[in-house]
């Protein structure tokens, strides 16, 4: 992915649902129940989105324990998995998202001053 790290380019090529604004990020996080990893991942994700995509994101959490058939349909193997549906769908990112830089790189978001340190596996959590 070669994107200019200057700005967020929220280009959408496909027609979007009418309700959402054009530069909205539609993110989906797959988890299986409340495990330490999934809680961490969700928290990290929320924080990253708040910091970098304020107001322009939408997170959907799919709990595979409740909807197991989604795993097959969406080809999910590892958990937690983060998938971006909009802007263009792109490769999955798996793990608890504790590696902020990698996540931002994945999302094409420039690493502006990382405001807070991410929660790692042995970080405190609520």
């Amino acid at each position, binding site marked *: 992915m070669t994107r200019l790290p200057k700005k967020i380019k929220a280009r959408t090529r496909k027609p979007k649902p009418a309700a959402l604004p054009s530069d909205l990020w539609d993110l989906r996080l*797959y988890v*299986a129940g409340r*495990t330490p*990893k999934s809680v*961490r*991942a969700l928290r990290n994700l929320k924080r990253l989105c708040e910091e970098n995509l304020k107001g322009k994101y939408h997170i959907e959490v799919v709990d*595979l*324990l409740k909807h*197991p*058939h989604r*795993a*097959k349909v969406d*080809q*999910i*193997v*590892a*958990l*937690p*998995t983060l998938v971006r549906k909009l802007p263009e769908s792109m*490769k*999955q*990112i*798996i*793990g*608890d*998202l*504790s*590696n902020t830089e*990698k*996540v931002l790189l*994945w999302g094409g978001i420039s690493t502006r001053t990382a405001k807070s340190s991410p929660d*790692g*596996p042995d970080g405190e959590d609520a």
Partner: protein
Amino acid sequence: MKPAKNNGKTGPSLHKCPTGIVGLDQITNGGVPRGRPTLVCGGAGCGKTLLAVEFIVRGAIQFNEPGVFMSFEETSEDLSKNVRSLGFDLDDLIRREKLAMDFVRVERSEIEETGEYDLEGLFVRLNHAIDSIKAKRVVLDTVETLFAGLTNTAILRAELRRLFLWLKDKGVTVLITGEKGDGTLTRQGIEEYVSDCVIMLDHRVHDQLSTRRLRVVKYRGSTHGTNEYPFIIDAQGISVLPVTSMGLNHLATTTRISSGVKRLDTMMGGKGFFRGSSILVSGTAGTGKTSIAAAFAKAACQRGEKCLFFGFEESPAQIIRNMLSIGIDLAPCVKKGLLRFHTSRPTLYGLETHLTVMHKQIEEFKPGVVIVDPVTNMISAGIAQDVRSMLLRLMDYLKGRQITTMMTSLSSVGDAIEQSVCGVSSLIDTWVFVQDIELGGERNRGLYILKSRGMAHSNQIREFVLSDHGIELLDVYLGPSGVVLAGSARLAQAAREQAEDAASKQEILRQRTQAQAQRKALEAQIAALQAQGLAQNLAIEHLAAQDRLRAVQGQADRTAMARSREADVAAPAVAGPRRGRHL
């Protein structure tokens, strides 16, 4: 059909799950361990996926156990297409909820790893699939692909360990395929976690001929065949060469069956071969071995028995045509379904595959008589020891089923007469030898029985003649210095003997006539002498009679004289002393 239990000889502690694959269940004494994972490993193209598919499909169809096929390499559509040629309709099974298929796609280029993760997604999918059809069997083909897609091997290994434990708890029988590594059973060393049962597949090419082999490397808690077993993949799937008992416990019957040539039966005590015995017909080229085999086949069909003819030299049409020329018509037998030909070039595949194919044909057709013509061609498909071993196993298999076998063997002109290829002679029960007799500018054939276990047989050579009405065995003549005469020489000798016979007959007749004449003469003489004797007798009697008459007359005269002389009438008896005057 409930799943087989207690098939293994180990008792109730280890249940087994039959695979339904021909021969594999025998080697493993009942199948793979139930509720435990089994590893199937091998190189590329060995047939692992096919084995796995058969395990699931046959489980669903034959044993009514639904199964889940989780594939990491081929999509479900591709798999369906690939196995359709074997007669497996995967879509239909899915519809009937006997099969669930899941294709897991793990592409490294599509995945970014950050932080800790686990493979719970896989668990969820597997669990969902198993629960949806209440599966009892699961296949993972091939789990090692995960290692190509994800980089964190520590997590992967931990998760795999967890997966197998979880599957064991779930109570399903799992088959896992793995690609063979260098020096290890699998490339990623999965055999660490899956070590209850390991089956290794192999695809070897030797001298341009390929053979597939299967070996049960390990089977915890059960006895199993430990050898390498060849198998074939054909239109019905995998067939493993079934285990032939290598003990010598065959039954021996005393029924006899005809060889198709009446005189040959006569040479064997009048009854023919033992049923279930093995017969070798050997001879040099062109001596008529195939003809004897064809006569045997025809006799079997006429008895209503099925005959399977394995030919390695001629096509069926050629054999039928050639045999028709000597009056043996095999076409109606073929039409009635009693005679089946299976011909192939020996170099078509390796020896083991030949054996497997023959086994399969025999199992399917269930003949009472099997003919292999010729057996010596197999040399081109392997070395002599291997051919002998293969023949041994074949004959062992056939004897165990009481199938009478006839094999023809080609010997070369320079060979010693009693040498048979590959030392096969000690394995067979009856050996019929056809040899060339070359004499007086021609070549004729002689046949004799070299050995025939268990029966009295003739030790005479018979001349073997092929004519329009079939095979004939004629007596041979012995010429001077014990040379066997056949063909024209025989005819000449026969003519000569006939002439001699006639001549001596004539001579005897002449002498007899002469003697008779002499006797007649003597008889005439005797008659004459007898007549003389008679005449003499008559004369003597006549004289006696005359004497008596004279005596009586004399007395009467004297009496009359005395009366006339008035002498005393004396008593007529003249016993008293005479008194009176002497007259």
